[in-house]
């Protein structure tokens, strides 16, 4: 059903397709080395650097036995010589069977999918979409909770600009969740997302305090409060330590609760949380490889 269908935005796929991806990801987790991509060439085009996402994709391709061509930054490419994005995609889509791309310009992946002969997987287009992150988050939630239905999710940190929390909110809204939004006043969840939840009758609460509001959560999803988001640095100084999750704050939380983070982490989760069995962010990163293997295999019609 997903064969030859580009993945640009989380809304491109149906709920049934999400579940198919999760199912195949679980198969790959059990048996990670399946040489399904023998004789396939996948282009990995990173017009801006992203170590984690690129290595996760390239690991997924290698584990599937495929070969990777591409670049990890745009400075050594013909784009630097002035070639248009259009020409780069047109050319590379003649070489490879699939294109994975990250680009700082928003909408670049959607445009690429319109002109390319082969499917495109969006690995991030500016602050717009990063659908494979969202799918690996769904896989991590499903795996740790055994379901996606009726969960309580606490989203913590920068809820205004955080692309991952917005995609997660949209995707999880299919499964009757309850949300706690925990952020500084200036980085609250944008009204358009709250309107969306209202329209679907989904419950949410907004808080500025972290510790008391995670006790009944199934998932605590932490994102970084970035200094560059504040025009008033005094305000940043006031809030920067409020949103640091510490091990002792996890006392009294539910047994099934897991802490997720899209990484990279700076200081918003204290390293003393890492040894707590509720810390799940490194497993989440590992899940990213299986989820991406599943997406690639399904798009190429190999599963």
């Amino acid at each position, binding site marked *: 059903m997903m064969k030859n269908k580009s993945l640009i935005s989380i809304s491109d796929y149906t709920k049934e397709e999400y579940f198919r991806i999760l199912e195949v990801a679980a198969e790959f987790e059990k048996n990670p080395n399946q040489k399904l991509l023998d004789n396939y060439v996948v282009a990995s085009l990173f017009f801006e650097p992203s170590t984690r996402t690129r290595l996760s994709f390239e690991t997924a391709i290698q584990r599937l036995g495929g070969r990777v061509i591409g670049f990890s930054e745009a400075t050594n490419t013909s784009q630097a010589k002035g070639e248009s994005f259009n020409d780069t995609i047109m050319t590379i889509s003649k070489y490879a069977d699939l294109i994975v791309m990250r680009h700082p310009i*928003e*909408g670049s992946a959607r445009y690429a999918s319109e002109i390319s002969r082969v499917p495109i997987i969006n690995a991030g287009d*500016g602050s717009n979409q990063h659908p494979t992150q969202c799918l690996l988050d769904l896989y991590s939630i499903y795996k740790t909770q055994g379901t996606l239905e009726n969960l309580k999710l606490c989203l913590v940190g920068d809820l205004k600009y955080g692309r991952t929390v917005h995609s997660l909110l949209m995707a999880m809204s299919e499964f009757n969740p309850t949300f706690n939004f925990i952020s500084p006043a200036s980085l609250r969840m944008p009204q358009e997302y709250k*309107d969306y939840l209202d329209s679907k009758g989904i419950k949410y609460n907004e808080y500025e305090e972290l510790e008391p509001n995670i006790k009944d959560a199934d998932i605590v999803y932490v994102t970084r409060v970035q200094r560059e988001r504040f025009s008033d640095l005094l305000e940043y100084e006031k809030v920067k330590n409020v949103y640091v999750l510490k091990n002792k704050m996890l006392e009294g939380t539910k047994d099934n609760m897991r802490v997720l983070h899209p990484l990279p982490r700076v200081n918003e989760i204290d390293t003393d949380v890492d040894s707590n069995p509720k810390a799940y962010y490194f497993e989440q990163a590992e899940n990213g490889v299986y989820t991406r293997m599943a997406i690639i295999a399904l798009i190429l019609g190999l599963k």
Partner: protein
Amino acid sequence: MKEELTVKAIENGTVIDHIQADKLYKILSIIGIENFDTPVFFGNNLPSKKYGTKAIIKIADRYPSDDDANKIALIDPKAVINIIKDFKVVDKRKVELPEKIEKFVKCFNPKCITNHEKVATKFTVVKKDGKIGLKCRYCEKITWEDNIEII
């Protein structure tokens, strides 16, 4: 006072009527009157039974394309287009906002691909609290009516 007295009647052409007074200059600009070589007459702050005041544009010997009608609908969905032949109205239609708008509106997001490559813009029309917005097919951001810029 009848507007025919203040804005000259035309023999053949188009009359765009019931324009909200504050939308006149924007409509003149989007239909590109500077490129017209036939007479154009317009009046503003004319009395209107419906809205108090209104504006009107009369263009001799020219008829609007669908694109023109879409552009007008985007700026003032209450405007009415009359086609004039022999001083008589032969066709009267309300402008209607289409579901999709392509090519002639700029995406307000400076980081959108349409502002960096030769990519024609494509939008889906959305409405919220009586305001019209255009959701970009590419960057997925909404350009609200106050920011609409015609290209």
